[in-house]
């Protein structure tokens, strides 16, 4: 039983979290389009489903809170209250609170801690204020006489959390000196009487009526913490002379139907009374009675009933609340929908997937080895077989990696909320535009990119976008815009966070950097280098330290986090027009298509995605490391020099042209060895500071080859050229500048 309940709870929590996500999405849309009735209904349904479910799993604190939220949503749905900023904010906060309540439920605590409790009450009060404002505005002033009618026509509200007490006093009670009303008053002192119905049906016609006999009965809804025994004790004095039936809170529909049928009064009439005092709803009553009728008919027809249908079990377990029934139905539909979706989806544990990827990695290495042997053997059939094999291995590798790919969209949409909240807080009007949400990347990367992205987005909101008046003065639209964009580019994924705000102030950054002694005043730095100084530790140019960012920690943390993912981050900015932060991450962390090159006796792997072309390189000795490639300057680097490999370069070297982040560079190698599938093995910690190497791999022959870090190499190459040129300019500013091909600068 407990297991069943745990199972129920975990399903409930999971589904509720999904509902909360939908609710949040809906609320965010609500502000943009306050009249979208479908949307409001969807939000209401989400809250309703959560509440309904909480009733089924008997989680009082969630039910209670959600009920209050639902009340407000109901008013919203009925158009009694208008959508407003504060309202949406409050509802969003309620969403957050419901999330934390879910956490409490998951933690298997019986009630939330004080902090959460206090927060819940505070939100509850604010909800109440909204609801009260509705009531005050919509209820016309009524005369006392009308009020009675309102009261009496009410009773549609159902209170399942109350005891139901059904009492029929015996005729001799009054003669025995007892006063039934006193018992009821005493009963009321145990708690709160939510509803009471006097049943006068026992009064006979005038002629037979003895005024000293008691004919009355009462149906009472009592909200109390008292136990059944305490309630029974109230009627101790008349115990022998009254019919007392007590149904605990959340009794089953069947119990009520049974109660109705046991009591002497007319079934329909009594049923209506139960409806009026809030024990049942009309439809429940009807359904219950019909079901009862059918059951009677059915048993008459066939004695041995077949296995109990699910619905009855559900009813039998805990249903009386019509809304719960509704919610359950809605949930079932939802579950069916989900099942249909799940039929195309299998949930797999992440570590199983990792294991598969590992195995595929080994397979790739083993395949490469088999390939090599086949090549050496010159056995044509074997060659053919291995080539088919390696093609299959390639497909397996691709599909295995595909398994880990998820779209970045979910990560992006989370920022809708952030942008909304922060812009409210800052009093700015900012919209978020998202593109490339369908871009896929490795799950492990997605999980770890959230924090750095959050920081960049907040930074853009806080420092990037100017206040509305400044924007207008600068001739920009008052509403600022922050965009998130993602796309694939040569084997990496690029994520951009851009804003159309004030941009970075180059001079200010420079001054600050000099003040912090990050650079020397004489350092020749390009504009690009200067603005990228913001990623240095302890750097903040904000004049005012704000709550969100600008405390001088952050950008360096962002960079560190991204570097930990073997990625890079960099910023481009045009003053007055905005900034764009660009994050580049490797698409996968495990297996790549490599291009094998040789220098001396060692082999190196260049990720194939970044290789543009290979060109022959003859006698290009000279001081400057760039060449003219079809009219463009191409800086290059000699790996032999960089890695200080001994031996003489052969007469004919080759240049592999690689591209990274829009920059091209040449890598000079001795030998081109062709394509090669590579499983990247991380290097040990000893090599953590090695520049230009990102990992190692095992060749088919069993030898180890190093994987080149193209990003770092391109950086080294362009940096070296820039420094060289800037120094050159420093010495002879005018005369020689013209002789430098402008293309070198174009990429910087």
């Amino acid at each position: 039983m407990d297991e069943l309940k745990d199972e129920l709870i975990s399903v409930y929590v999971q589904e509720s979290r999904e509902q909360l996500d939908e609710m949040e999405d809906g609320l965010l849309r609500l502000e943009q389009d306050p009249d979208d009735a479908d949307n409001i209904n969807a939000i209401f349904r989400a809250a309703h489903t959560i509440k309904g479910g909480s009733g089924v799993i008997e989680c009082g604190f969630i039910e209670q809170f959600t009920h209050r939220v639902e009340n407000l949503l109901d008013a919203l749905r009925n158009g009694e209250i208008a959508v407003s900023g504060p309202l949406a904010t409050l509802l969003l906060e309620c969403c957050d609170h419901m999330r934390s309540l879910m956490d409490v439920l998951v933690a298997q605590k019986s009630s939330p801690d004080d902090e959460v409790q206090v927060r819940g009450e505070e939100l509850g009060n604010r909800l109440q204020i909204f609801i009260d404002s509705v009531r005050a505005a919509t209820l016309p002033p009524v005369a006392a006489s009308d009020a009675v009618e309102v009261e009496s026509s009410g009773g549609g509200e159902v209170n399942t959390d109350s005891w139901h007490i059904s009492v029929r006093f015996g005729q001799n009670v009054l003669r025995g000196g007892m006063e039934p009303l006193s018992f009821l008053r005493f009963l009321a002192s145990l708690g709160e009487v939510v509803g009471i119905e006097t049943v006068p049906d026992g009064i006979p016609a005038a002629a037979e009526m003895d005024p000293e006999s008691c004919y009355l009965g009462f149906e009472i809804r009592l909200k109390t913490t008292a136990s059944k025994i305490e309630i029974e004790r109230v009627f101790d004095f008349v115990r022998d002379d009254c019919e007392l039936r007590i149904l605990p809170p959340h009794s089953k529909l069947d119990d009520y139907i049974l109660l109705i049928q046991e009591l002497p009064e007319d079934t329909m009439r009594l049923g209506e009374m139960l409806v009026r005092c809030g024990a049942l709803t009309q439809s429940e009553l009807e359904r219950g009675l019909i079901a009862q009728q059918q059951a009677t008919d059915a048993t008459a027809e066939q004695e041995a009933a077949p296995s109990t249908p699910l619905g009855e079990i559900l009813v039998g377990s805990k249903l009386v609340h019509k809304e719960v029934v509704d919610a359950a139905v809605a949930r079932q539909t939802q579950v069916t929908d989900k099942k249909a979706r799940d039929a195309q989806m299998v949930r797999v544990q992440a570590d199983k997937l990792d294991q598969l990827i590992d195995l595929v990695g080994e397979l790739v290495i083993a395949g490469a080895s088999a390939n090599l042997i086949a090549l050496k053997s010159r056995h044509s059939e074997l060659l053919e077989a291995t080539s088919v094999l390696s093609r299959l291995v390639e497909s397996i590798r691709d599909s295995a990696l595909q398994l880990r790919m998820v779209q970045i969209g979910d990560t992006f949409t989370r920022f809708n909320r952030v942008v909304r909240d922060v812009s409210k807080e800052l009093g700015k009007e900012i919209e978020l535009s998202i593109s490339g949400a369908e871009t896929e990347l490795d799950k492990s990367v997605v999980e770890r990119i959230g924090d750095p992205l959050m920081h960049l987005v907040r930074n853009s909101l806080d420092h990037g976008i100017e206040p509305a008046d400044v924007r207008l003065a600068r001739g920009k639209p008052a509403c600022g815009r922050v965009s998130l964009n993602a796309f694939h580019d040569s084997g990496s994924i690029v994520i951009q966070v851009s804003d159309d705000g004030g941009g970075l102030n180059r001079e200010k950054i420079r001054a600050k950097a000099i003040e912090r002694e990050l650079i020397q005043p004489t350092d020749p730095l390009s504009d690009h280098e200067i603005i990228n100084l913001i990623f240095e530790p302890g750097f903040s140019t904000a004049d005012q330290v704000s709550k969100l960012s600008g405390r001088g920690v952050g950008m360096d943390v962002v960079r560190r986090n991204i570097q930990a993912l073997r990625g890079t981050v960099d910023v481009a900015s045009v003053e007055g027009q905005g900034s764009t932060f660009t994050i580049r991450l490797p698409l996968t962390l495990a297996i790549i298509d490599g291009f094998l090159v040789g220098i001396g006796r060692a082999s190196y792997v260049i990720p194939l995605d970044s290789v543009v072309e290979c060109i022959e390189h003859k006698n290009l000795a000279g001081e400057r490391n760039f060449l003219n490639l079809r009219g463009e300057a191409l800086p290059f680097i000699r790996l032999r020099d960089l890695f200080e490999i001994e031996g003489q370069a052969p007469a004919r070297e080759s240049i592999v042209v690689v591209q990274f982040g829009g920059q091209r560079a040449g890598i000079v190698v001795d030998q081109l060895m062709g394509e090669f599938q590579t499983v990247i093995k991380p290097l040990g910690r000893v090599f953590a500071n090695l520049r230009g190497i990102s990992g190692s791999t095992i060749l088919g022959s069993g030898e180890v080859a190093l994987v080149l870090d193209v990003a770092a190499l391109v950086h080294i190459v362009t940096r070296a050229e820039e420094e060289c040129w800037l120094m050159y300019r420093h010495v002879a500013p005018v005369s020689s500048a013209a002789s430098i091909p402008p293309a070198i600068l174009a990429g910087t």
Partner: protein
Amino acid sequence: MSSGQLLTLTEDLTIYNALELKSRLLEALASSDALELDLLQVADIDTAGVQLLLLLKKEAQRAGKRVAIVAHSQAVRSVIEFCNLAAELGDPLVIPATESV
């Protein structure tokens, strides 16, 4: 038979007077098409009293007559409210101007 007869009760609507009240009320109903009850001076009412009021209403309904309680004392009103009988009895519960709530 006059219509719109007003009956003013001054004694308590309790078990002690129940026998006597039953006959008085039924007689009054018999002699009128529309009986009006003034309960403003009723200081106490108990289950027996409530029963009588219900009986009176029921009888009136059966005979196609009307019984209206035109004035309630504090005691009567609170019992009617407690038993949630305002709808059943169908009379507006007017709070007299003299009585401050």
